[in-house]
């Protein structure tokens, strides 16, 4: 490690952390770093906007389960990344962001392309630090990866002044990282586990609420095993989608504002709710006093600050989801409990039958649910769906059945329009052998559509399905429902022509007018080695249902 420059030390440490790809854009304050990357066997994927390098790293992390790394220059490069970092923070995604910074001598003097990125990202990162001394680079970067990936994962930003990158390291790297203020707890408390089992065993109408934490801790198998052993139906949050196969008889789908009929109805009946790796966001709970009002809540989360933050908890377990589910399973097996669930199962069937009788398809034309619904049969089990934000996202959540964890990737907390496309590119880099599809709206896609250049030039083929209603669809839906159809600031009026746009970037574009046409175009797109944008004109008047109106409780669900 002697006689390396700071920039060489960055690349050396990244390689020791197992980094094979990074998403980044060069610039003045990272020139030394990129000069080293020129010869390094780490592939830099050159994006076209720094917001997207963070989203790509995020999508890479969510799809592959390994931390994503993104790089930008100082000042505007760094501030452009802010949305992507905030997005990763809200959804607990492990990314390491490296930013260049003005040289130390001019920091604080409003130097060219200087921005206080440490100050700016403090509230939206798990940890952020500036490297003030070249000797600290290996330790700081290793610490960044450790913090990003352990406990509750999250983004970490390391800001490295340009002259630190060019300084020479003389000392050896310390072997271990010691963080006296960071000791993530992993193991569930045995007494809490025993209490949880007692509650679940005596419950008549138990339900599991599976969140993103199950996916992050690789606990899907364990969640399903416990659910099957105890015959517990499973609802998910948006982030938990895919944690258990949604075609499983015990799967109820997503709960919340645009949750499924059965999940939203049945959670009101539950007497014990086993909530694992969830944070009870307002989009999940609706009005808090109307969220599973009759249930005692067991809350398993690795972040103790989530316990009691939004809803009152009867039994907290601060631990890793997988470890907890395994211990619950073991204890239930040891007790040799058999659960009589036939009244609860018949209630579930009754609600499902109700929904079938409530449903009617009164739109003979091409609708978003029909397109999204067709996708499952066109894709293998491990294909990855990403979504943008708004109606497209909720249609995808409602009508696409995820069968495996890490196959449904969506901006849950921050609700970032423009996330889905760069996230799809990141996911494709992590999983090059499965089809990756961004379910998009026209409003969202145009926010990051310049990454078509990245996908073409870097040869990362994905499929973008634009559900094109020429509106900011979800905004328009609210304006229809609550603002007397006054479409202020939401009419996009059919621009651009997405076919020509795709072609301008060297991608393929196609417009389809029926489900059959869509299926054919989609199959061609899956087979293609170039990114394809399929634009599907749909009615600007189409709404997403079911829906819990804002500020209302789950019982106030409306169906049309």
């Amino acid at each position, binding site marked *: 490690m002697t006689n390396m420059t700071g920039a060489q030390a960055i690349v050396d440490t990244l390689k020791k952390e197992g980094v094979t790809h990074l998403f980044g854009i060069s610039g003045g304050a990272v020139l030394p770093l990129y000069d080293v990357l020129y010869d390094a066997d780490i592939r830099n994927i050159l994006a076209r906007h720094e917001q997207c390098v963070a989203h790509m790293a995020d999508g890479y992390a969510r799809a592959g389960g390994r931390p994503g790394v993104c790089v930008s220059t100082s000042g505007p490069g760094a501030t452009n990344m802010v949305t992507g970092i905030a997005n990763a923070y809200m959804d607990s995604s492990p990314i390491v962001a490296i930013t260049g910074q003005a040289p130390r001598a001019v920091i604080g003097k409003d130097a060219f392309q200087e921005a206080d990125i440490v100050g700016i990202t403090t509230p939206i990162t798990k940890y952020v630090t500036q490297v003030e001394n070249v000797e600290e680079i290996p330790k700081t970067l290793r610490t960044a990866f450790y913090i990003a990936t352990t406990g509750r994962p999250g983004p970490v930003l390391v800001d490295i002044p340009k002259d630190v990158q060019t300084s020479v390291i003389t000392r050896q790297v310390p072997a271990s990282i010691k963080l006296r*203020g960071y000791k993530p707890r992993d193991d569930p408390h045995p007494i809490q586990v025993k209490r949880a089992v007692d509650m679940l065993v005596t419950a008549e109408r138990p339900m599991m609420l599976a969140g993103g934490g199950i996916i992050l801790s690789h606990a899907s198998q364990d969640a399903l095993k416990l659910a099957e052993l105890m015959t517990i139906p499973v609802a998910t949050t948006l982030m938990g989608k895919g944690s258990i196969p949604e075609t499983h008889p015990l799967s109820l789908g997503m709960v919340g504002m645009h949750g499924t009929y059965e999940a939203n109805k049945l959670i009101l009946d539950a007497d014990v709710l086993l909530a694992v790796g969830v944070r009870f966001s307002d989009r999940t709970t609706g009005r808090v006093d109307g969220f599973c009002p009759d249930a005692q809540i067991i809350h398993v989360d690795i*972040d103790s600050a989530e316990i009691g933050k939004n809803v009152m908890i009867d039994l907290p377990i601060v631990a890793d989801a997988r470890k907890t589910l395994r211990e619950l399973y073991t204890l239930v097996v040891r007790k040799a409990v058999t659960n009589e669930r036939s009244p609860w199962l018949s209630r579930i069937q009754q609600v499902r039958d109700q929904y079938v009788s409530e449903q009617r398809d009164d739109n003979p034309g091409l609708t978003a649910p029909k397109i999204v619904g067709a996708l499952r049969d066109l894709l293998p089990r491990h294909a990855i769906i990403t979504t943008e934000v708004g109606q497209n996202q909720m249609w995808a959540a409602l009508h696409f059945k995820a069968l495996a964890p890490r196959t449904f990737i969506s901006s849950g907390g921050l609700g970032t329009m423009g996330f889905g496309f760069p996230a799809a590119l990141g996911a494709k880099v992590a999983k090059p052998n499965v089809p990756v599809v961004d379910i998009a709206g026209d409003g969202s896609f145009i926010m990051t559509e310049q990454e078509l250049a990245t996908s073409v030039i870097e040869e990362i083929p994905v499929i973008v399905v634009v559900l094109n209603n020429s509106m900011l669809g979800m905004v328009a839906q609210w304006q229809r429902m609550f603002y007397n159809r006054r479409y202020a600031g939401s009419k996009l009026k059919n621009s651009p022509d997405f076919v020509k746009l795709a072609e301008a970037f060297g991608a393929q574009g196609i417009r389809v007018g029926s489900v059959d046409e869509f299926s054919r175009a989609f199959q061609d797109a899956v087979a293609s080695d170039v990114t394809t944008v399929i634009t599907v004109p749909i009615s600007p008047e189409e709404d997403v249902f079911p829906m819990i109106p804002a500020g209302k409780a789950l019982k106030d669900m409306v169906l049309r």
Partner: protein
Amino acid sequence: MEGNNVQSYVISAIVEHKPGVLYEVANMFRRRGFNIDSITVGRTEHKDQARMTITVSGDVYTIEQIIKQLNKLINVIKVIILESGSMVSRELVLVKIHTADSKARSDAIQYTNIFRGRVVDVAPDSVIVEVTGDSEKIDAFIDLSRSFGIKELARTGATALGRGGKVIRE
């Protein structure tokens, strides 16, 4: 989640003594909507650690959240609540009291003595008095000083330690 019993709590936090940590802590309070009544920061017996004494008011749920959110910060090493019965809390105030004449001055000095304070500066028409004590005592002295007229005032906010032999360890 709002309880009704709003109370004052004293939080003692051992943190990394390095630039930006005060910002990080203060920023967490701001963004989560918690209010700081007072905050004092200084180095501890270890040169790389600082102690923050933070006085906050809120209900029990809010305080629990504050403690948990503080614990989440990587640069925060240890956080405890100091219970009012089992801690020593001290604050220091400097009050520049208007002393219009020699009678006012001698009265002011007399009050200062009763409060076990010290006169640390004298000018023709004012004195600066230093008083140390718990916050109630400081409040009482300030109230008393108003009868003379307070020209200006600076108080530090409370700093505190738990009583007895126990210490906060990382």
